[in-house]
């Protein structure tokens, strides 16, 4: 019985220290510029927030200070960008996410991959809150809008 209680306490402690909703990981450097309120991560960057997980070669995140807390406002990703959002995977050369409107804009060899389809284009605007995707083609003449099913709504 005592062993079980101890195991439970240790498990809870481990869970509380290992789990985090949001994180940034990088293999080379992370630069914190407090004057410009910016974090720059380099090398195999992994960024996770409550909405998605993103991978890229480089990341620049701007933040503001509110009530003695720092909050990311924009996250910019460079080179080999992969963003996993629920069952979709967005890919591109560059991406910028703005927290205010929860919109991700990807550019350069963009693709959206879902269990049922793969779409490619030049620019993707993913409106997370409104569950809308706008994919512009490379020649910018045609527009493809993909509405996802309601059961994947946030």
């Amino acid at each position, binding site marked *: 019985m005592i062993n079980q209680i101890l195991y439970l306490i240790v498990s809870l402690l481990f869970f509380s220290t290992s789990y985090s909703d949001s994180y*940034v990981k990088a293999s080379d450097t992370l630069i914190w*510029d*407090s004057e410009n309120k910016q974090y720059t991560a380099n090398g195999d960057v992994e960024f996770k927030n409550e909405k998605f997980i993103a991978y890229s070669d480089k990341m620049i995140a701007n933040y503001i200070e509110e009530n003695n*807390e720092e909050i990311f406002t924009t996250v910019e990703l460079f080179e080999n960008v992969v963003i996993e959002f629920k069952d979709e995977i967005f890919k591109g050369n560059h991406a910028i996410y703005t927290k205010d409107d929860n919109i991700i804009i990807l550019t350069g060899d963009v693709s959206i991959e879902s269990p049922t389809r793969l779409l490619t284009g030049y620019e993707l605007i993913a409106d997370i809150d409104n569950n809308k995707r706008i994919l512009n083609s490379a020649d910018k003449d045609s527009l493809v809008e993909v509405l996802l099913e309601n059961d994947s709504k946030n």
Partner: protein
Amino acid sequence: MIRNINKKIINFLIIFFLAIQFFIYFYNQRPLSENFSQKDITVENFSSIVLSKSGITKIGSKKLNKIDEDNIYLEGNSYLENDEYKIYGENIYIKLKEEISNSNKPVRVVNSMGVLKSKGFKNLDNEGIIIFKGEVEFLID
């Protein structure tokens, strides 16, 4: 006769004590005319505060080694703490004049966004920039 002797003794004592007071006053007020500079000082269980661009930074270590006038080396478990961050690491070099500190040992940093772990750091305090080296993990609250 006895009264005269007592008066003389009292006068003597007054003059004597005034002289001592004057002596003490003079040597207490006298400015130090020599500069003492000692290199290679080592202090154990050291803590102090440093005024830099990011405000007052409290520094401490298991062992402080003063390399020269502008360079100190915090040996063993060490920390730098101010209003913006708390850096816990070991073997930290500090260039006081340039306001630069760095370490190639694992470091843990706490700031208002979360907790960061890296393999080392370089803190350019006068520019407000901290570079975390190697594999970095930043857990955001």
